[in-house]
């Protein structure tokens, strides 16, 4: 059996030897975690695209979602598929790599090279497993801020991200307002709702109920809780799509058969689709990482750090915000984005808000939705102008 993840061809795991840039933070630079622990040493795996200008004013940080990673706009080293946001990031794209210096890092708790539960714990020589302290969104952002320091960048032109990435954007704007010129939280919420936590708990229980999970020590046992992780992904994937989109795409269509088989085989196309989503996911993601990143989202409640007032989190902020929601997203619904907008307004911040009409549900932020692409381009162009960056296409980026 393969030791998870990514060594099917006998190569080192991405967790140990990522196909990307890596920043190492030694004993003198520990990560101060919300769990009350100093994590040291630790590693942040990241990618960059484009060139940092001499004034260091053109950097855009992209924060990835739950199971995303730093491979935003390059072929994924494990799946061989295009980067997860190539629709948005690249030459001539809204996040124009001819113009901006784009940074994307794997989150703390992830499995693509940044320190996470599948990384080797230097104290034991084994994978951390559940010995890694529980990670929060704020921890992720602290590690990103240390990376930005490491790159010698003072202020980010923009911080952009969807879903869990949007939570990081909000945390950035609250924690480091003077370092964020513009912020674009997409399809996200300022806190996880009870329903959000509930879905995550289903996923975690599926993983932990798998006998191959081995109380989190499966790497030591050379086992993988692939069944549990696949079920977790299947349940989550349903929440990423809208009812209309599912109905239109699959309806009650049968999979390669003309009649139901009167069995529990995958008769319906939707079943087959979900099984495929589950089984392909386990080839690229670590089960313990899934526990950590879902927990980070669950613990996220930005207002809680500000006496319960979200407006206080953004009070006096000079950051330009553009909040985006999708009208068919029921995971982080439009109302959750409106709550952010209200708080920003109450805090006196400069904020734009667009609710994009689409039937593609939560996942719309990853897809080619023209109104969304246009909004992003318009907002970033305007932010770049206000920041004094030269116009796109004159080769000075």
């Amino acid at each position, binding site marked *: 059996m393969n030791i998870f993840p990514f060594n099917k061809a006998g190569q080192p795991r991405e967790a140990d030897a990522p196909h990307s840039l890596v920043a190492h933070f030694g004993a003198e630079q520990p990560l101060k975690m919300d769990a009350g622990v100093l994590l040291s040493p630790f590693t942040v795996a990241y990618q960059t695209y484009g060139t940092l200008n001499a004034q260091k004013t053109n950097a855009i940080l992209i924060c990835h979602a739950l199971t995303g990673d730093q491979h935003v706009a390059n072929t994924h080293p494990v799946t061989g598929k295009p980067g997860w946001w190539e629709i948005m990031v690249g030459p001539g794209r809204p996040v124009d790599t001819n113009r901006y210096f784009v940074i994307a890092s794997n989150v703390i708790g992830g499995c693509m090279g940044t320190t996470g539960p599948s990384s080797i714990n230097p104290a034991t020589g084994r994978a951390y497993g559940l010995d890694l302290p529980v990670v929060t969104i704020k921890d992720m952002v602290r590690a990103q801020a240390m990376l930005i320091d490491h790159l010698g960048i003072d202020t980010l032109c923009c911080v952009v991200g969807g879903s869990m990435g949007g939570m990081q954007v909000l945390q950035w704007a609250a924690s480091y307002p003077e370092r964020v010129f513009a912020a674009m939280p997409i399809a996200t919420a300022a806190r996880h709702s009870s329903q959000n936590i509930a879905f995550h708990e289903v996923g975690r229980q599926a993983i932990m109920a798998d006998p191959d999970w081995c109380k989190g020590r499966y790497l030591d046992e050379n086992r993988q809780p692939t069944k549990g992780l696949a079920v977790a992904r299947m349940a989550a994937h349903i929440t990423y799509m809208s009812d209309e989109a599912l109905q239109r795409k699959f309806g009650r269509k049968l999979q390669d058969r003309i009649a139901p088989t009167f069995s529990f085989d995958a008769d319906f196309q939707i079943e087959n689709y979900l099984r495929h989503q589950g089984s392909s996911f386990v080839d690229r993601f670590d089960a313990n990482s899934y526990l950590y990143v879902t927990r980070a989202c669950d613990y996220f409640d930005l207002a809680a750090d500000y006496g319960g007032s979200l407006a206080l989190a953004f009070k006096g902020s000079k950051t*330009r915000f*553009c909040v985006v929601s999708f009208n068919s997203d029921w995971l982080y619904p439009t109302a959750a984005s409106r709550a952010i*907008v*209200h708080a920003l*307004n*109450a805090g*006196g911040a*400069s*904020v*734009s*808000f*667009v*609710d*994009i*009409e689409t039937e593609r549900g939560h996942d719309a932020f990853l897809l080619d939705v023209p*109104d969304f692409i*246009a*909004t992003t*381009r*318009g*907002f970033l*162009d*305007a*932010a770049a*102008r*206000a920041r004094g960056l030269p116009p796109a296409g004159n080769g000075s980026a």
Partner: protein
Amino acid sequence: MKLLEKPVGQNLSRAGRLDLLLVADMVDAHSRVLDVGCGDGSLLRLLAEERGVDARGIELSQKGVNDCVAKGLSVIQGDADTDLADYPDDAFDFVILSQTLQATRHPRKVLEHMLRIGRHAIVSFPNFGHWRIRFQVAIGGRMPVTDNLSFAWYDTPNIHFCTIRDFVGLAEEIGARIERGVALDHFGTPLQLNMPWWVWNLLGEQGVFRLTRLKP
């Protein structure tokens, strides 16, 4: 009371709504402005670029919001009837409602919110007391359709028409003081100010008013 003290509006096309220029003229330079129903952001841009105003907007249509965001304006997709309630008191110096009052479900509540959120409210609206409209109803016996109000009764978004006199009455009722008021005739020319109210109400196709709270 002087109108158009400073020529503004180079950015507006000639077809641009004339009342926007009047509205712009009623806004103090370098103030904080919320334009409710800001459309494609023409007025906000005019105010930002020529008056140094901190300009924000609310717009219902996605296209309008996208146009505004692309211009670098801070605009929120939202509805005057439901979303003004979420703004804190005294957040703005001016809250503008241009050609939208008659399309709101609760014009009185909207106006009250405007005066709560802003120190001043500026409202422009089509005058339903204009002689052409009176003529169409009185003589033609049909709901009026004019250049300015081109919808048939069954598909109009305009559900709460008022006349200039009605508006002045509402302003009194909610404790607002009219600081400035202008009526525009068919050609967009301001009417002579020494004319009595009934002349305004008869000859004005549009009314533009700047209000403030009686009690600060």
